[in-house]
């Protein structure tokens, strides 16, 4: 994958937990971002090759114009990856503009207690509901030229869920958290968004 030093407006980085209970939420995020004409990326695309995973992760994050960080699963057992990647995004936004980041949380005011340094930020509270994720991401990232109807995006999310199940069966995997399934879902999400008229063909 060729990455440019200047962040691409179309690229969005997803910093989310990889557990079975989060699959629907990840699919909702993919459906929302593709409806906005963005290309979702995540750490699954960074293979473990022993050549400095952190450097490759940083390069991927640097190449994305926006990043979404879900801190809803940063509970016990403590997982530091998501807060760590959020810290990297904060540093990027501060020192290597342009980069904007969004925080997602399950419960209201929880991030005020767990991460009081970011009290000025208003996190997107999704209550573990894909519907809320779709409407929240659309309202946060919509623009004049890209403002799909959340109801239509939710319909695409339902279709993408079915595709995810089919892909899991095809690849013989138990979860969607694999590099191949993730990129296939992004491709399918984009196709659905084009078919629904959310993004225009060239």
């Amino acid at each position, binding site marked *: 994958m060729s990455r440019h030093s200047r962040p691409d407006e179309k690229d969005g980085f997803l910093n989310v937990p990889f557990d079975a209970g989060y699959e629907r939420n990840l699919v909702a995020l993919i459906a929302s971002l593709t409806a906005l004409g963005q290309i979702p990326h995540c750490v699954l695309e960074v293979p473990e090759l022993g050549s400095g995973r952190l450097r490759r992760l940083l390069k991927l994050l640097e190449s994305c114009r926006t990043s979404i960080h879900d801190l809803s699963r940063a509970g016990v057992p403590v997982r530091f990856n998501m807060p760590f990647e959020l810290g990297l995004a904060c540093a990027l936004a501060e020192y290597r503009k342009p980069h904007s980041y969004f925080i997602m949380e399950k419960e209201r005011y929880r991030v005020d207690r767990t991460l009081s340094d970011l009290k000025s930020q208003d996190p997107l509270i999704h209550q573990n509901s894909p519907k809320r994720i779709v409407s929240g991401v659309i309202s946060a990232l919509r623009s004049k030229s890209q403002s799909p109807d959340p109801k239509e995006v939710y319909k695409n999310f339902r279709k993408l869920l079915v595709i995810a199940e089919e892909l899991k069966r095809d690849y013989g995997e138990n979860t969607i958290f694999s590099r191949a399934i993730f990129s296939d879902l992004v491709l399918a999400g*984009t196709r659905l968004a084009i078919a629904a008229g959310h993004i225009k063909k060239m």
Partner: protein
Amino acid sequence: MQKLKKAAAETKRSALNKNGVNRKPAKTKSRIGTNSSATIKSRRVEPWPRPRAIHVTEKATAREIEKALGIKRDTIKRVERIMHDLEAKNWRVD
């Protein structure tokens, strides 16, 4: 007298078009010379407005996504087939 009246009405009608508007308005002093060839030549012709630049996010087509994600052609065909089959089943899994 009748003939004269008829001739006057005919002249008046011929000066009007079908909408009842004068075909050729009389030239007033201020209009004289404005249509001369010299004026037309020197008149600046505005170019057609350029088409609006397409917003970068609108360009995110499937092909671009495929390129950005480094997806191979056979994978694309497979995803297309899955989507086609599911669409035929009205998005229901067996």
